[in-house]
């Protein structure tokens, strides 16, 4: 069997991993620069598409065409996401059930954006192995519904990657831990990532990982922490400087990135300082860990009810849980750890890097599928009840939530009118009684029923949730034994024809090649420095001598000329020169800003005193 890699397609970062044949251990594949994490950011620039770190560096300057956190839009309808669109700098439109992102004069769907990230990881793996990689196990949040899983599979197809299995992230994490670190017993996996939250309760016994129950929220994660901090900072900026930055896309990105960075620092430190140079002023703010904890407390609290529900569904008490595993970057936040510990009464495990553990687990699952591991078996569940709409809009549950997958259910249907040849079915997912309160998955049309008096045809429909948690439907007319044709209209998804077209178009969005990428990056870096210097001159131009000002202006002009060429090295050289020419200006400005903020001490003294 050909090689299968494991991919964690995350909201914030994505990774690819494999199991090393020699050691039998999973390991993450780094990029050329040794980085394991690929930021899940895609920038559509006039010169080509950028993925990962270079795309992330574009966020502030090209917020409208740089797409991040696209996982939150996967398999979603406009109604599902419209409330949070105001926080995203790129434009999102409703389009035939799904949403599309407007990039200049074209539109892309969330699966197409994810496909660009997947292709970048595929290429990373191919460079590592020196051979083509065509198959992957890809992880999704356990609480992802059918549409969201389907969208992930579509992304794989568009990227030219055969997703041989979709695995739930917390379950994958337990596999990574399970190799050496878990004792037999009940394990709770608490997975709080950038945009999603999952809790899974498993029983581990003799190499079998049996998921007993799962719960979660596919719209809750570190992004929401950042958002809470940003809203607070917006108020503070208005108070300090009398400016409301909420409608300034670039400033909002600056704030978001600064908030994220501060949040990360505060997981290790009690206090931190945030400094953001804006056009008209430089914003300073001291933040204590307690401030952030106050802001995110409600969000962290909202992860606890799903924990209790999962335990109840598993028929277990917190004291039955032997071990607790933390997954996802957001579990580095001390408040999250404290709350998890309170709920389960156990010190959680976190020996494995919470950013990498899901990808490592995906690699283990890939190795199982490839036949490389035969003693481990994962038995997962479907997170949401599957049902059909019956008379009066009531849901009749066919497969209850937390049923071990693969799972199937058979149901008989008939006609209600004489001579009727088509029967409609509406399949939904969710826990509510009324179909309209559940997630509409698809409408099925059973065609070619032989015309008979009403009630006479007996059509047996089989609903099967496969090991990926994805629904398959088959129908048979029992009287004639013939297979009925089913036309599926997914409520929130792409048709096969859409996907086929996107596979063709995907080459238009191919990541720029190495040379082009380096040039784009050089131009980018130049643009960033040009913007900063222009801003610095506006704010602090008067703080330096005319002679120095002239030198800076000259360097500025040279870089502008270099940027217009394709000469990457020249752009680099002139960028460095401009940086050097403005070093003194930056220092003078820092002193002035600190004088404003802290009294009359010089920057150097403050740095020395620390």
């Amino acid at each position, binding site marked *: 069997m050909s090689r299968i890699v494991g991919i964690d397609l995350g909201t914030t970062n994505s990774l690819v991993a494999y199991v090393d044949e020699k050691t039998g251990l999973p390991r993450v594949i780094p990029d050329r620069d040794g980085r394991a994490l690929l930021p899940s950011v895609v920038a559509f620039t006039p010169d080509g598409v950028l993925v990962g770190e270079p795309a992330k560096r574009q966020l502030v300057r090209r917020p409208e065409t740089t797409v991040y956190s696209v996982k939150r839009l996967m398999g979603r309808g406009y109604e599902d996401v419209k409330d949070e669109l105001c926080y995203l700098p790129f434009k999102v439109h409703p389009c035939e059930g799904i949403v599309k992102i407007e990039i200049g004069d074209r539109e892309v769907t969330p699966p197409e954006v994810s496909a660009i990230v997947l292709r970048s990881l595929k290429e990373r793996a191919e460079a590592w192995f020196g051979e083509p990689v065509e198959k992957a196990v890809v992880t999704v949040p356990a609480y992802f519904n059918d549409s969201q899983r389907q969208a992930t599979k579509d992304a794989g197809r568009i990227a030219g990657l055969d997703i041989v299995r979709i695995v739930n992230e917390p379950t994958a994490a337990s596999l990574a831990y399970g190799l050496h670190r878990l004792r037999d017993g009940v394990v709770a996996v608490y997975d709080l990532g950038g945009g999603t939250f999952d809790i899974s309760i498993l029983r581990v016994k003799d190499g079998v990982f049996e998921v007993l129950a799962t719960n979660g929220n596919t719209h809750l994660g570190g992004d929401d922490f950042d958002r809470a901090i940003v809203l607070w900072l917006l108020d503070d900026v208005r108070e300090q400087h009398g400016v409301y930055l909420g409608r300034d896309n670039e400033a909002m990105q600056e704030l978001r990135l600064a908030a994220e960075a501060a949040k990360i620092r505060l997981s290790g430190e009690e206090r931190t300082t945030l400094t953001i140079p804006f056009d008209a002023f430089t914003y300073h703010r001291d933040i204590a860990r307690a401030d952030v904890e106050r802001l995110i407390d409600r969000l962290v609290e909202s992860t606890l009810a799903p924990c209790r529900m999962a335990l109840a569904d598993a028929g277990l008490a917190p004291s039955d849980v032997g071990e607790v595993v933390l997954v996802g970057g957001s579990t580095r936040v001390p408040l999250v750890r404290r709350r998890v510990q309170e709920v389960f009464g156990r010190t959680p495990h976190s020996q494995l890097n919470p950013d990498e553990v899901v990808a490592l687990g995906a690699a283990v699952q890939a190795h199982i599928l490839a036949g490389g591991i035969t003693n481990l078996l994962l*038995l997962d569940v479907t997170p949401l009840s599957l049902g059909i709409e019956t008379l009066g809009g009531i849901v009749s549950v*066919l497969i209850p939530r937390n049923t071990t997958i693969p*799972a199937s259910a058979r149901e008989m249907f008939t006609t209600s009118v004489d001579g009727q040849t088509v029967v409609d079915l509406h399949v939904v997912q969710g826990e509510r009684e009324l179909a309209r309160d559940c997630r509409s998955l698809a409408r099925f049309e059973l065609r070619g029923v032989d015309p008979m008096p009403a009630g006479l045809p007996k059509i047996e429909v089989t609903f*099967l949730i496969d090991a990926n948690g994805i629904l398959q439907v088959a129908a048979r007319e029992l009287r004639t034994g013939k297979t009925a044709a089913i036309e599926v209209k997914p409520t929130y998804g792409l048709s096969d024809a859409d996907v086929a077209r996107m596979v063709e178009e995907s080459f238009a969005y191919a990541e720029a090649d190495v040379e082009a990428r380096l040039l784009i990056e050089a131009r980018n870096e130049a643009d960033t420095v040009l913007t900063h210097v222009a801003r610095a001159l506006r704010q602090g131009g008067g703080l330096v001598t005319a002679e120095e000002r002239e030198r800076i202006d000259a360097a500025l002009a040279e870089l502008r000329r270099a940027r217009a060429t394709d000469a990457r090295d020249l752009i680099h050289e002139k960028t460095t020169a401009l940086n050097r020419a403005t070093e003194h200006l930056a220092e003078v400005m820092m002193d002035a800003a600190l004088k404003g903020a802290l009294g009359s001490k010089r920057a150097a003294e403050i740095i020395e005193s620390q």
Partner: protein
Amino acid sequence: MSHFEVFGLPRRLAVDTAELQRKFYALSRRWHPDFHQAAPADAQARALEESARLNAAYRALRDPIARVEYLVRLEEGRETREGADEKPKAPPELLAEMFEIQEALEEAKAGGLDDAGRRGLGADRDRLLARLRAGEARLTGPLGAAWDASDAAARPQALAALKQALATRAYLRTVIDDLNEALGEQADGHVTHRRH
């Protein structure tokens, strides 16, 4: 193939759940799609089907109450799907008491709850919950044992007793859920997916 047959078990309610789990894991190792990834398409389809059948069988048998529900359906040859419950039916000896509780519930819905009313409903709920548990113990205990021990002649009677106990249980659960809802509490009498 019945769920009992999947595990090579006789149609009896006494099941060694530890042994059932062991068999479930062993059969999962045989049929789970993970281990048939490289197989031809028809073999993969077979594994998928067997695996789904196995999971359904385990779900129906691992829980002693679900096991009784399944047995009753099986004996009656009903084509209902997994998880379909027995129709709730009030036990005759409880009718008067139930009537009072329903009245109190209606009042609570119409006019809200004062402390005394809340205490009253809470006490009702606790009493019914105790009765529910006692009924479950009877189902999984003497009634189940009576079924297992019955010969062909005694079977219809043993089955009827199981059915009646299930109907009472379903009824009690509905009332307990209503009481919990009126009290604004979590449905702690909810045992649908409970594992043992």
